[in-house]
């Protein structure tokens, strides 16, 4: 079987984001593979290392030339080859799902792994839209996966806890933090990745023109309360902190 793992490129979590001309300005920002997708790449590798009959792991990305860097990271982590659908157009999740579904069919993959949400586009729609197009089952927000033959088992989050599932392949799975701890692309693997295939493709073949256009962006700013607690009496300070966390911030029960 083959696994397709989607790779998106987003600003590093520590990057400072600017807006210019109503658009997010990525100039000078460090761009990395989306963490959510990284869990997918890692899980594909672990499924194979765990003994599942995975004959090939393919990474797919769409976007401008710079997205190659994220694909090379996936190759260096251990993915076998990569496909880059190069375009300067920003694809909304529905348009992107058209590309993912067609590549999955053309490549004959039976498992698609995509991040549950994207750091810079939080629609959470890509996995579902891809599954819908293909008529495959989808398992969202997984935190454990195992493959036995053509059957995928695992656990995933639901509103008030989690469920265990069993599903025959093909299927679409969305990944999230907690599924695994992604490996570093080691230096020897970075060197080996040089020789792996990174195939270029164009968007026209997929009929995936985006219909949603971003016309403006704003950075969310949060006013801080800057509440200070007098620490002279540690016990009273701790009690006050607990009270604030419990009753004002409501972050503990």
């Amino acid at each position: 079987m083959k696994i397709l793992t989607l790779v998106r490129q987003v600003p590093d979590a520590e990057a400072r984001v600017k807006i210019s001309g109503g658009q997010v300005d990525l100039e000078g920002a460090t761009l990395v593979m989306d963490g959510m997708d990284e869990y997918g790449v890692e899980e594909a590798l672990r499924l194979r290392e765990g003994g599942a009959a995975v004959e090939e792991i393919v990474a797919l990305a769409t976007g401008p030339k710079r997205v190659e860097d994220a694909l090379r990271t996936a190759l260096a982590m251990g993915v076998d080859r990569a496909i880059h659908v190069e375009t300067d157009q920003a694809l909304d999740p529905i348009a992107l799902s058209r590309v993912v579904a067609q590549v999955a069919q053309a490549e004959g993959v039976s498992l698609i792994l995509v991040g549950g949400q994207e750091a810079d586009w939080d629609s959470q729609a890509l996995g579902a839209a891809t599954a819908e197009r293909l008529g495959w089952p989808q398992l969202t927000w997984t935190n454990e996966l195992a493959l036995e033959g053509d059957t995928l088992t695992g656990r995933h989050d639901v509103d008030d806890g989690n469920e265990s599932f069993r599903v025959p392949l093909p299927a679409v799975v969305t990944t999230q933090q907690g599924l695994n701890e992604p490996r570093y692309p080691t230096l020897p693997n970075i060197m080996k990745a040089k020789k792996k295939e990174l195939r270029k493709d164009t968007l026209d073949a997929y009929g995936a023109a985006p219909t949603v256009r971003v016309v403006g962006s704003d950075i969310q700013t949060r006013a801080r309360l800057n509440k200070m607690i007098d620490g002279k009496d540690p016990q009273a300070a701790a009690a006050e902190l607990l009270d604030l966390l419990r009753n004002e911030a409501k972050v503990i029960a």
Partner: protein
Amino acid sequence: MIDFSLTDEQKQLQQLARDFARKEIIPVAAEYDQKEELPWPVVEKAFEVGLLNVAIPEHAGGLGLGMVDECLIGEELAYGCMGIYTVLMASELGITPILVGGTEEQQKRFLTPMTEKPSLAAFALSEPNNGSDAAGMHTTAVLDGDEWVINGTKMWISNGGVADLTVVFATTDRQGGHRATVALVVPKDTPGLSYNKIKHKLGQRASLTSELVFENVRVPRANQLGGLGDGFKIAMKTLDKTRIPVAAGSVGIARRALDESVKYAKEREAFGKPIAQFQAIQFKLAQMAMGIETGRLMYLKAAWLVDQNLPHGMESAIAKAYCSDMAFDAANEAIQVHGGYGYVGEYPVEKLLRDVKLNQIYEGTNEIQRVVISRNLLK
């Protein structure tokens, strides 16, 4: 003609080193500094991801990275902690004489085992009474049949005593000057080799610095690098290369000093506004940025010359002296930006100053670098 872009692989190894510094070095740097302890777990992790001993050539089972690659990694790791980076850097320093003066057979024999498990190398040149005047060394090597017998004491040896192999420089005739010097590879646990850890260093406390004592230490003649009399030349050729990572590490320290200063200057308020809004602070930040950018250009140029097999002695000396002086100033100013808080361990800037001081001293003092530079001007 000039292209400042990195290759795809270089961008990735830089990113790997940056992630490694952020996740594996920064969280433990203060702790190892306080404990004055070599961080073996970090060395082991560096080995796992391939960041240890990157210069070992492909024919000996290594990655054979170039000097530009090594320096890009060095800047990132030193950003996390110069002391911890010194452990790795000093190992590359210990390997380099074998690359410079060893045969392919020697490179395989000594270096291939180092690719198989986490292991360090060391370079033993300085002595208690002898540093910059390296050719005047007192440690002796006497040929006895097919073995060299080494006697003497080496000082300030990074990784000294814990390294799997140490390249030691000795003289076969104390009156013979540099023409009597020889470079010998001494494996760990060779009888007669012992070490004393040097304690209470100002900075770089995560790096182990030792006094190495040789008492009738015997190594086979096959462990001799180059010919008789080549020792000094091998040492100098080695340092011409390895002082470039010192420059790169210095740039890493300066970048950390700037980042910490920018962060603090935006948070700290005085006279009703963040101190970042005062020109006195802004100019310090600008000065640091000027040093970092120009320093990086210089270490990259020197490293590029090495990779092109072009002469690089003067450029590496400029890079080392310039970058370490620049980084010392940056760390010093970072403390000034932080005021009283910068003087105590709660913020990482006081450690930057303690650590960077050594960059002005080791692998040839900055005064020796200026001797190298001026000799090139006047020859």
